[in-house]
């Protein structure tokens, strides 16, 4: 009897023991899955060059980030390596690099270079510390290479894609990004956010990473870089749709309700919670056009284009030891946009950050936007008041050919309208007792613009330069320019 009871007890203990083991195994499995899921994502180095844009895995050794040197140089030229431990020799085009395992110095073309860490060989692969690329690559490539270590992005040569962003005051608002080169980001959204991620494009930061637009629907956008990618996160209060222009240089974010229920190809509907939608490449076919048909028949999205001259490396006039023309023009441009938009004039600011924007690109943006008027802003320390310029024409250039306008004399048919615009602005400035002159000038890109185009050079009212940065003076001038544009609005709007 006793033995039967003991048998039952051991049977029950066995059953419970198996159950307990199963529970423990499940918990361990769950923890393992959790650990794998929570592990840091694989690190990558994004490389941007004129030859190719590519991405390489980054490995961690001895607490440092390392990269395979052969793999890095391979897309850029003719490269070969010979491993003879502890030595490793690499030929890039006609340049010889000699590395030794465990040594933190290498010889490139007979000259010593610091590697900021020990050189390693793994399975014949030569690994160099990521931090050494800033000093190592110029020796091989013979040109500049800039590594942004915090975001694992490597720029070889002077390659960069800049962008401007502005909100149109249409009802409802739209956010328009203009890029200096075609882009193809992936688009994702979560509640109240829309994210554009650029993995293949050498996108560079605007002057301020936080862009504010003063719109209730799209109040701001934030630029950041991380793990070989650049990202623009747009804050929005309603779902947005992203559309690409055929040339891939313009992305428009518009409220989803204005779109059809089914998204056309090339347009991503985002804004619904927890959606993540990759977008068709803008270079591919069936892409919705945001630039639209030829200038004459295109719908007008912006009435005015305000171009803050200079930017980036081009500082313009050094107004003082600390004050550059490029900074004044951006401040004026933002103020002028406010003034124009407060008078119901939809306005796009071409340069809203400290970016290099070539003159041809400015003309390209202005012409493809089909605006009614283009206003280029300059600042100067000599003279007083405001000088208004229209293009100096006839400018000896090529003649128009068929439907194609000559680039150098594109402004010729709009000169009377440009002069009328300058006269209207001058009249408003004179009402405020501001000294004003109206001149023609050999100033690009005025002659490349197909619509009414003026340049405004703002000088201080007296010899003291401080009013150039004073909000009151900027407001006064910007308000008068805006009044001048409003006064001639009907004439400008009637122009093709």
């Amino acid at each position, binding site marked *: 009897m006793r033995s039967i009871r003991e048998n039952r007890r051991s049977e029950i203990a066995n059953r419970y023991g198996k159950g307990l083991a199963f529970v423990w195994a499940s918990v361990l499995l769950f923890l393992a899955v959790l650990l794998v899921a929570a592990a840091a994502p694989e690190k990558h180095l994004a490389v941007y060059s004129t030859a190719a844009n590519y991405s390489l895995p980054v490995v961690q050794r001895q607490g440092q980030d390392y990269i395979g040197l052969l793999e890095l140089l391979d897309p850029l030229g003719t490269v070969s390596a010979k491993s003879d431990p502890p030595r490793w020799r690499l030929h890039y085009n006609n340049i010889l690099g000699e590395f030794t395992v465990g040594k933190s110095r290498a010889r490139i073309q007979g000259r010593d270079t610091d590697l900021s860490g020990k050189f390693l060989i793994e399975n014949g692969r030569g690994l160099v510390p990521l931090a050494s690329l800033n000093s190592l690559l110029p020796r091989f490539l013979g040109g500049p290479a800039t590594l942004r270590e915090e975001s694992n992005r490597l720029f070889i040569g002077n390659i960069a894609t800049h962008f401007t962003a502005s909100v149109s005051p249409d009802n409802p608002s739209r956010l328009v990004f203009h890029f200096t080169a075609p882009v193809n980001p992936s688009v994702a959204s979560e509640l109240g956010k829309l994210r554009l991620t650029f993995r293949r494009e050498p996108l560079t930061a605007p002057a301020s990473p936080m862009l504010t637009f003063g719109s209730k629907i799209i109040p701001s956008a934030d630029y950041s870089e991380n793990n070989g990618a650049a990202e623009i996160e747009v804050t929005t209060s309603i779902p947005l749709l992203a559309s690409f222009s055929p040339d891939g240089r313009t992305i428009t974010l518009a409220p989803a309700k204005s779109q059809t229920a089914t998204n056309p190809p090339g347009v991503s509907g985002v804004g619904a919670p927890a959606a993540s939608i990759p977008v068709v490449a803008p270079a591919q076919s069936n892409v919705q056009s945001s630039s639209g048909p030829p200038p004459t028949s295109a719908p007008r999205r912006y009435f005015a284009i305000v171009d803050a001259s200079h930017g980036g490396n081009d500082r313009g*006039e050094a107004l003082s030891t600390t004050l550059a*023309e490029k900074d004044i023009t951006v401040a004026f441009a933002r103020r002028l946009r406010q003034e124009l938009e407060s008078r119901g004039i939809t306005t796009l600011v071409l340069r809203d950050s400290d970016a290099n924007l070539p*003159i041809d690109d400015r003309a390209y943006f202005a012409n493809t936007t089909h605006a009614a008027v283009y206003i280029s802003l300059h600042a100067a320390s000599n*003279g007083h008041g405001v000088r208004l310029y229209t293009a100096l024409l006839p400018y000896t250039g090529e003649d128009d050919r068929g439907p194609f306008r000559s680039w150098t004399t594109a402004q010729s048919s709009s000169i009377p309208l440009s002069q009328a615009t300058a006269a209207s602005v001058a009249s408003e400035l004179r009402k405020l007792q501001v000294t004003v002159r109206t001149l*023609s000038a*050999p*100033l690009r890109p005025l002659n490349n613009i197909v619509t009414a185009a003026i340049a405004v*050079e703002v000088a201080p009212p007296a010899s003291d330069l401080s009013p150039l940065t004073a909000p009151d003076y900027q407001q006064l001038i910007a308000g008068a320019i805006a009044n001048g544009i409003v006064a001639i609005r009907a004439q400008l709007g009637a122009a093709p």
Partner: protein
Amino acid sequence: MIPRHFYLAVSVLLLAVLSMGLYAWHMRGRAAATPVASTDTRPVEAPVAGPTERETLFVAYDDIGVLRAQSAQIPLPSVRQQRAEELLRALLALYLGKSSPHQLSHGSDIRSVYLVDPGLAVIDVNAAFADGHRSGVLSEELTVASLIQTLSANIPGITRVKILVDGKERETLAGHADLSGFYDVSAVGKMAEQMQAASQ
């Protein structure tokens, strides 16, 4: 016995040698303190001998932002191309002078002027001219108008002008005035009229 007058003569001569030595020492110190003339690269007056001619220069005035026609007596050679060069050098000499109405940078010069028929003049300025030029729409426009107007007003037959910097094409003079194309002399003439009429 050495005669007395001999003593006197030797003493006077020694005194003269000593005083001349001191004077030479003083002059050497002054010369060292004065900047060496050879480092001054400003163009000197036109190295042209011969009779002078009265020509019209279009002179820019920065303080009031205008261009003014001003006659000047300039020695000019008879060869057309050399005349063009000397005219512009005379204009630059005004701008590089102490009371310059339109400041150009130290060392600015005209390298050459090429007259290419029919009607094209190519003005080649040196790098110092453009690199040190004051940046600004009006300031650069005044320079361009001054050069082209002075040339076209005094050398007949010029209808187009191209400006090179150190023998090469440059996009702008100092960030504003376009140098990439050819200037039409009649258009620049109208621009110069605006600049002569208006002032601030």
